[in-house]
């Protein structure tokens, strides 16, 4: 079943200005994990804003669950390269923020606060942050902040998770650890993921389908299914099959550079 559909979507931030993305068509199945790679400034973040309804296309159509998107959607989880945690809230309070906004949690907050708190604590423990619930963001390392940020994006059980280079600022070890964490979360309780990344290994490791975009104005150049079995482990990343997938993508990116 198709969950997100783009039909010849173009977007210019200013009327009559240059296009940020051009004629993008793609479709994402329910609970599919897609990754979008491409050179800087090609419109990857723009694509995310279109999916979540934060921007409207200049031409073309974006459908979510069969309905055309107009205006911000109600129940999407988002995480960015910067964790964007609120410094006046503890980890637990930060993670619970969506529950204070999204229905039906919002109206049940007063009655079920304890229950929601348990839910948040469980998720926090699930990503390896047990014991850090009552610490403030500045007391957490970059990797821990990012884990908390992903918890915040998932606590309200969104059908769609948007990740814009969420691991971009982390060291290689932490990054790979978080890949596994994300994959586990996704396999336990599937949701649809759109992941924007610069890291081709990350894209191949996590995604079912990888889209390669061209230099701005961004167009989809290649759609490539990654048919490696799941769950994928870090050992798998050293296998022949994995390496060849990465190589194919790298060749496509290389071809864009030469243009």
């Amino acid at each position, binding site marked *: 079943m198709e969950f997100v559909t783009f039909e010849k979507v173009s977007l210019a931030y200013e009327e009559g200005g240059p296009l940020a993305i051009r004629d993008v068509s793609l479709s994402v199945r329910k609970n599919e994990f897609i990754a979008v790679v491409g050179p800087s400034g090609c419109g990857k973040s723009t694509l995310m804003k279109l999916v979540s309804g*934060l921007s409207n296309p200049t031409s073309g159509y974006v459908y979510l669950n069969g309905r055309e998107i107009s205006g*911000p959607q109600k*129940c999407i989880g988002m995480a*960015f390269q910067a964790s*964007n945690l609120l*410094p*006046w809230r503890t980890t637990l309070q930060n993670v619970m923020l969506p529950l204070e906004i999204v229905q039906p949690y919002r109206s049940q907050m007063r009655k079920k606060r304890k229950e929601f708190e348990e839910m948040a604590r469980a998720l926090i423990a699930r990503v390896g942050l047990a014991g850090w619930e009552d610490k403030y963001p*500045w007391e957490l390392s970059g990797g821990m902040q990012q884990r908390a940020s992903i918890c915040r994006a998932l606590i309200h059980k969104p059908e769609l998770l*948007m990740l814009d280079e969420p691991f971009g600022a982390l060291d290689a070890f932490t990054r790979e650890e978080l890949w596994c964490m994300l994959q586990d979360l996704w396999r336990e309780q599937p949701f649809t993921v759109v992941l924007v990344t610069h890291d081709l290994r990350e894209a191949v490791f996590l995604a079912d389908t990888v889209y390669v975009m061209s230099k701005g104005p961004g167009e989809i150049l290649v759609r490539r299914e990654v048919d490696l079995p799941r769950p994928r482990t870090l050992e798998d990343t050293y296998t022949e099959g994995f390496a060849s997938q990465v190589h194919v993508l790298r060749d496509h990116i290389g071809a864009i550079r030469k243009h």
Partner: protein
Amino acid sequence: MAFNRRKFMIRNASWMLIVVLLLLWEILCVGLEVPEYLFPAPTAVWSAGIDRWEPIMMHAWQTFFTTLVGFAIAVVVGVVLGIAVGTYPIVYKALYPLLVGFNSIPKVAFVPVLVVWFGIGTVPAILTAFLISFFPVLVNVATGLATLEPELEDVMRSLGASKLDILRKVGLPRALPYFFASLKVAITLAFVGSVISETVASNMGIGYLMMAASSSMDMALVFAGLIVIGVMGVVMYELFAWMEKRFTRWANRGSNSVAV
């Protein structure tokens, strides 16, 4: 030992500087035999202060009261306008040039107008204190709201948060350090406003007391008045500095820095 002494010096530097300056002042006045009606020595100011303690206190309370009322109005107006300016780009566009222009007018120029409208006394002093001190509050609240990280706003909006939700959950808490920083500036400005107005158009308050004293060449009393204003200003400033520390501790730890 030497280390401890340095710490002690740093902690008490402001007191020691005041003592040194007072001593220099006294020595200058006594040594050069400066007449008291021109420049009274600290001891003369002190004795004038003791002699006239009751009238000074009465006028000081008047000034303190007008300043606080004007300041309170300034905080309310500053916060409301600051939220409007910081949240709605159209209000910003419409209001900002006007406000900047208004802010460049010396507030003492309003006093004659206020006197015509309200007569001399407390009301023009309160209004002058208000006019002079609401601008920093407005600017800081607006800045705190307008500098919200766009990504954070995206996170909130994609959860379906309304503008009011974003303001309550993110905007206002985030603007709090800016707000408290502005209170420190605003309270000292409010004193300036009320005293200016009292010197021009009142028969009450420290400003009036100083005006009256200077016209009878009682310079010791004028200086006593100046010192009383200074002390009130410092005390209120420290109070708001303490509140700032107390309520926005997170702002000094995280990456967010605060403009004044």
